């Protein structure tokens, strides 16, 4: 635990933070629970990639369903729950007024998670849709749409009721996903499930949805957090802040188009793939500005929260550059349909998004409950485990994908040979998944203790300076 500084500065918390406590704790608690569940499912799926017989005797645990279930638990369980919590908290904090519609948000959060639990059970029972990033069964999707909207209402009210007319980059990024997700989710529901479009149009719509979910929902959640945390914790301004609006609008306008890059060479109109490639390259503009804006996060001093954010930022920019490079047809010929593209997705989801959100959670939860984290050792364990896990699983999959891509392009190499060539690297990825799960358990334990254990001294003592709630790096 950190020592309490003696100098008394501005109080760091207020009723504004605590106004949002109930819905936010439901969201964050569920997010962490889903992170652990998804991590367990991902570990099983990862083992099955190099040991196909593992748990194969049971239909619920067959690889195809495991993969869909772990992806869904991660995206809709961990990522959306945590993203919404961070977004709401930032909007309330920067808006300067207490959260309104807290009851609605809490009910929305509860229904979201109940429906999701039913959906994941449905996937394991065989009701997956088959579309990547959109595997939830049709019977839970409308409920989830309404539940998300209920939570989003609170965020939008915090935006519209803000005290200052002028808004900061964090607020743009925090409020955008509250609109984007219901929109793209409902369009995908109608055009893929309830009144499905014909033929390969489904693949185009599914790619469009997946791209929007990643780039216009999850990425903005994470960017909102880091645009707030970096200046707040480090006390330094954002470099060239004037350009941040360009980065935001570039992402919003171009981001939704880039999904077509996954359909290169596929049975869809060529222009879909071509616009996907062009959009992926144009998006470099966004990544460069974000990189320049937040370059100060690259050497975090004095804060573990910022250390998470810094890793996330590096993964984000690196992932964006990789998306542009692999969109080029010559490169896509090698990486398409391989573990390389899986690694790219993981770099952005498990790396960029997750690390930036971890940073935000370590910063905001103590302020929400008025207690510091009970164990800084557990935070260190979490950081070390998820960082090592990320390097192992993403690195392992990158190498495996590269080998697999080379092998696939040689017609003489058969599939059992390819499986043998990549198996070592898939084992490395499994080790990475195991470490990630260990890290998630450390976070879950710390979070549970924070909620359960009573603070040793009056909580207000911890809030004299912002630093009091941080865990210093050394």
């Amino acid at each position, binding site marked *: 635990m950190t020592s309490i500084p003696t100098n008394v500065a501005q109080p760091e918390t207020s009723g504004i933070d605590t106004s949002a406590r109930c819905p936010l704790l439901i969201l964050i608690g569920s997010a962490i629970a889903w992170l652990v569940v998804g991590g367990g499912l991902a570990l099983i799926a990862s083992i099955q990639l190099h040991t196909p017989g593992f748990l194969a005797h049971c239909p619920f645990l067959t690889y195809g369903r495991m*993969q869909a279930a772990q992806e869904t638990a991660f995206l809709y369980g961990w990522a959306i729950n945590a993203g919404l919590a961070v977004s709401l908290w930032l909007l309330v904090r920067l808006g300067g007024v207490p959260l309104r519609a807290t009851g609605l948000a809490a009910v929305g959060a509860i229904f979201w998670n109940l429906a999701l639990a039913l959906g994941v059970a449905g996937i394991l029972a065989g009701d997956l849709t088959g579309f990547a990033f959109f595997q939830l069964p049709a019977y839970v999707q409308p409920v989830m749409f309404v539940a998300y909207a209920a939570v989003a209402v609170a965020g939008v009210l915090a935006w519209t009721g803000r005290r200052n007319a002028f808004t900061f980059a964090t607020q743009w990024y925090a409020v955008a996903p509250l609109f984007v997700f219901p929109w793209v989710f409902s369009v995908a529901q109608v055009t893929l499930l309830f009144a499905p479009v014909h033929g390969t149009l*489904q693949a185009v719509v599914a790619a469009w949805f997946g791209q929007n979910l990643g780039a216009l929902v999850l990425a903005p959640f994470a960017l909102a957090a880091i645009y707030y945390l970096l200046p707040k914790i480090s006390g330094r301004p954002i470099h060239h802040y004037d350009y941040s609006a360009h980065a935001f609008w570039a992402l919003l306008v171009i981001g939704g188009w880039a999904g077509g890059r996954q359909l290169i060479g596929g049975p869809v109109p060529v222009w879909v793939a071509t616009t996907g490639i062009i959009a992926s390259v144009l998006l470099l503009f966004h990544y460069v500005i974000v990189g320049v804006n937040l370059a100060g996060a690259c050497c975090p001093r004095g804060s573990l929260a910022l250390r998470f954010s810094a890793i996330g930022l590096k993964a984000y920019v690196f992932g964006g550059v990789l998306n542009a490079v692999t969109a080029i047809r010559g490169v896509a010929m090698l990486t398409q349909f391989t573990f390389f593209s899986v690694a790219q997705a993981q770099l952005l989801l498990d790396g960029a998004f997750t690390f930036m959100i971890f940073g935000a959670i370590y910063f905001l939860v103590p302020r929400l409950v008025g207690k510091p984290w009970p164990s800084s050792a557990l935070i260190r364990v979490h950081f070390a485990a998820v960082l090592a896990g990320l390097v192992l699983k993403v690195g392992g999959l990158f190498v495996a994908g590269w080998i697999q891509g080379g092998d696939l392009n040689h017609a003489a190499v058969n599939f059992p040979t390819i499986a043998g060539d990549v198996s070592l690297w898939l084992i490395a990825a499994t080790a990475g998944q195991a470490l990630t799960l260990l890290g998630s358990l450390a976070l879950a334990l710390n979070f549970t203790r924070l909620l359960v254990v009573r603070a040793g001294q009056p909580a207000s003592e911890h809030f004299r300076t912002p630093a009091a709630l941080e865990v210093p790096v050394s």
Partner: protein
Amino acid sequence: MKSSPLFFLGLFSALALSLTALVLATNAQYGSLAPFADATAGAAFPQAPLGLAARGHMVYRDLGCAACHTQQVRRADFGSDKERGWGDRQSVARDYVHEDRVLLGEIRIGPDLANFGARAAAHGLGAAQLLAFLHNGQGAMPAYPFLFVKQLVTDQRSPDAFAIPGLPDYELVPTHRAEALVAYLLSLKADHEYPETRQPATPAAPEKGTK
């Protein structure tokens, strides 16, 4: 940024743009693509799958087969799809007009299956061999023992049942789901030539709907 209405107008326009292009315009372009009526063959292609095969498509989806297999052949100069014998021509949009759930797949942990039925016929692979393959698994492909039921042999062996080595009184009977899945896999043929596939070096661009 100060003006909320302007901000939300921007958000709305940005989303509407990609929605219009990728969902609405593509739908207008080929959403009503129809089977090709081949006068010489006296039939329309592709042909709709028959009952058991259509049910097999649902099994294919619910077991998540698409997590490892693609169903899209790329053109000859893009990857080794043709050399591997996955198809003589590139897959085109018309190949999928009968499928109510199109599962193109994103990763090739196993081979592409767009033309699996045609390939199996060429190699003399029948339902019995495929069922055995499903039961045993091979290489990176897991076994699917839950698609089979072990039962006592009564007076007569069930059709399609396998003998179990060492257990002469028992037999292994494929479930309806296994039979449907195999029928589906054997029905996968995308080898008919359409006007759009006859032009060399014209990638994927499908024709407008023939409404």
